[in-house]
């Protein structure tokens, strides 16, 4: 276990009902947005637990976030090496178990989830071949997952997007299945920033506990430090969704 190297302390969240819920945030070598994901968990009211890729046991957590970054430098292929980390096999088992551990993969985390076969498809280089950082509108296509229940179906949210290998691809059959089963969780609206098939920004597994997306909801959780329009906190719903699910009952 490693202690996340935090700068300062975040303000304590107001809703004490949620702070018993523990969300693990995994750090691999080269992970970048782990502190941001932990902050998002705290701001949503939960307790963030730092998880280290080399841990051979999954600590006592109620959900897991696999944050963004360039784990192992994206060498070989984004997520291809991290997928073999000792902790990942535990997370894969927990996600597939009857308990259906909620798992969210953001950006590089999404890439790791597809490499782990928890989610279908893959990400290739953006169609314009450049890294792109922008505020992106997404439509929540499925609000029944563990990570989207606090959104309205069809709600449009604004969150930052920043990646080089963000073009979601899968074969037509898989894409049709995803569409048919309502497993396209998020779609790009107005502008497809990377050439993703069918404007897909994020998907869920059939059970709705494993969700992956390229944009970064953890960068839209605090006014003044995220997108300038829409209040900048549209991403908070990911974290409140899972926390409310964990503690049970409605808000």
């Amino acid at each position, binding site marked *: 276990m490693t202690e996340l190297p935090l700068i300062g302390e975040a303000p304590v969240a107001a809703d004490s009902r949620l702070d018993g819920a523990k969300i693990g945030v995994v750090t691999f070598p080269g992970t970048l947005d782990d502190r*941001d994901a932990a902050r998002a968990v705290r701001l949503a009211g939960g307790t963030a637990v730092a998880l280290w890729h080399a841990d051979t046991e999954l600590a006592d957590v109620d959900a897991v976030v696999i944050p963004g970054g*360039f784990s192992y430098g*994206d060498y070989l292929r984004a997520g291809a090496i991290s997928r073999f980390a000792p902790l990942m096999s535990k997370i894969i088992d927990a996600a597939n178990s009857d308990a259906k551990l909620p798992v969210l993969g953001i950006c590089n985390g999404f890439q790791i989830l597809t490499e782990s076969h928890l989610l279908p498809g893959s990400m290739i280089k953006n169609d314009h071949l450049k*890294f792109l950082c*922008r505020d992106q509108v997404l439509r929540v296509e499925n609000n029944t997952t563990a990570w989207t229940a606090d959104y309205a179906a069809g709600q449009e949210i604004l969150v930052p997007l920043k990646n080089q290998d963000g073009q979601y691809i899968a074969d037509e059959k898989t894409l049709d299945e995803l569409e048919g089963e309502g497993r396209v969780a998020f779609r790009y609206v107005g502008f497809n920033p990377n050439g993703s098939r069918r404007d897909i920004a994020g998907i869920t597994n059939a059970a709705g506990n494993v969700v992956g997306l390229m944009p970064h909801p953890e*960068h839209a959780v605090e006014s*003044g430090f995220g997108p300038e329009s829409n209040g900048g906190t549209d991403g908070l719903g990911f974290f409140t969704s899972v926390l409310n699910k964990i503690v049970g009952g409605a808000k």
Partner: protein
Amino acid sequence: MTTETNKKFNIDTVENAANTPDTELPWAELGLKQNEFEEIVKVLGRRPTGAELAMYSVMWSEHCSYKSSKNHLRQFGQKVTEEMKKDMLVGIGENAGVTNLGDGWAVTFKIESHNSPSFVEPYQGAATGIGGIVRDIISMGARPVAVMDPLRFGEIDHPDTARVMHGAVAGIGGYGNSLGLPNIGGEMVFDSVYQGNPLVNALAVGVMRHEDIRLANASGKGNKVVLFGARTGGDGIGGASVLASESFDDTKPSKRPAVQVGDPFAEKVLIECCLELFKGSLVEGIQDLGAAGISCATSELASNGDGGMQVELTNVLLRDPTLTPGEILMSESQERMMAVVTPENVEAFEAVMDKWAVEYAWLGEVTDTGRLIITWEGEVIVDVDPRTVAHDGPVYDRPYARPSWQDALQADHFTGSAADAGRPAAPAELAAAVTELVASPNMCDKSWITKQYDRYVGGNTAMAFPDDAGVVRVDEKTGLGVALATDANGRYTYLDPYNGAQLALAEAYRNVATSGAVPMAVSDCLNFGSPEDPDVMWQLAESIRGLSDACMELGVPVTGGNVSLYNQTGTTPIHPSPVVAVLGKLDDVARRTPSGWKEDGQAIYLLGTTADELDGSEWAKLRGHLGGLPPRVDLAAERELGEILINASRDGMVDSAHDLSEGGLAAGLVESALRYGVGARIALEELLERDGVDLFTALFSESQARAIVSVPRSEEVRFKDMCTARGFAHLRIGVVDAASNALEINGVEAMSLDALREAHEGTLPKYFG
């Protein structure tokens, strides 16, 4: 590959050197002058060994020794008041200066050049520029929190500019994005003077608690010296290959890159690994390996320490086993650090290395001999006083004189008339001129570049491009943070180096104040031509004199920086380009002031006065003119303006503020409108009467110490009273008009924001795809 390393080289030992005084050495090929070589022989009392020659030659180079600028740079340390020293925790001379932020926080920042590598190989040159400056920040014990990159390239339509632009921007993004450091701003200037000498400067800022400050020194006899991070390879060796006499086999890779190759993943792991070392107080001293590699790290650590150092060079982990001792000492392989560790901490140190899977090698230990001794399989190949390598290099008083052409240049003022389109007057022509200006390469929107950089990572970016300064939160509990801006205007400095350097500082200072932050410290990157040219040397001397005087007057000390000389093609130097970075402090970053208008009906005020100052301006550049005198410097007015902007931000009197500089009021108005897509109605009649200028001059002059602010109606009286009480010129020039979707200026044909945006944002994509 053979493991019998001693068989591969004719090792030139100290003993051998003493016995063979007449051996010819390639000192000239290594860039040393005859007098410098003779000085080395005198210092050592014998000829240097090959390894010693390698060390002296890189450490006595212009880049490492500052031999041409040192005599002038002293002014930065001399022109400092007690008041300015109050918050300086670490000054010039360490890897980077450290400034007190209060509440137990300290901040360290530094700007450096990576110019010539970025011309040869733009991607790796720019990438490793970021890598190097970030390691300087880590070396101080800080967590790096942001980067910025001022860039200067050749003309936008020159065929080679696209090569440098694509490579450098991709390199900065590719490396910086992978480190998890937000890129919060910078500059982009196109000018033919940079065609063969692009300037790629990189700034990094880091924060730490006071007790975590680390220094680069090796003290305490018996403490262990360790090299960790990436392996040492053949990249960035530069001149060392002429030491071929050391080698008698031909198994070497035949071609090696002169430019270092970066691995951002290794650097990211190194950052986290170092922070964990600091947290456990596991290192006594630490130094990054940059220019001159192990030569620099060993000699500087030993020279700054209280004793000496003994190192066994064959312990260095190599990527290329054919490297000779001289090459190992000179290699500039990236992502390496050297540290001094007490014997008690060795085990804990190794545990941190193992956790992050970072390779390390124990090279030797700190001694009390006062000597830096380097052995190769036990045989002494270097035996020097480390001070003579690291600090007592040659210092030159290069001759300098005001160039013979300077007077004629300064007499050649920008004239222009309505007839030659130099000073348009009709409403339609003025609107066309404003549009032309904001679409021009230097004034156009730079998001083609900045959208390739991650500005969000870390979650503490409170402001970034295109606002006047980048703002990063340091303490999440209190909102304490820092603001940073970098500026330089090579055209101004060419016209008048003394005032031009001051204008660079004034603009960076103003940009930081515009964000609401209190300016605290300066770092500078002095990019000039050859110091052996008396004209250039005069530009350098005058710039340093001007900058140091201005720092004193504005009360902001220089805490570090870098000098980059020989930026010239043949005998044609670049414009003197002192890039000045100013760091400021915000007690609560939530109070930062953005540059764009938002609220309908707010009053727009122009602070400061406007004179006919078109010489050296962006408008003059568009008309192909460079001559005359740069805008007048008024540091007292800059200071007053800064205080008004800071107080207005603190007391909530302004909702937006934007400094006026290149492109003048015209650029400022358009940028404030396009920031959030909110227009305004502007009337300048009162200004024209008060300042005695025409409408064209009011819009395009680059008079300094000016800013535009938008003031909520409820705050107008208070704001005006504050300006009046301070005796600072202020004028209500218009009102924010959210409904118009246009910028309407009396006397200028109305400009729709859509058309302005198309012009402003279209330029870089047009040239670079």
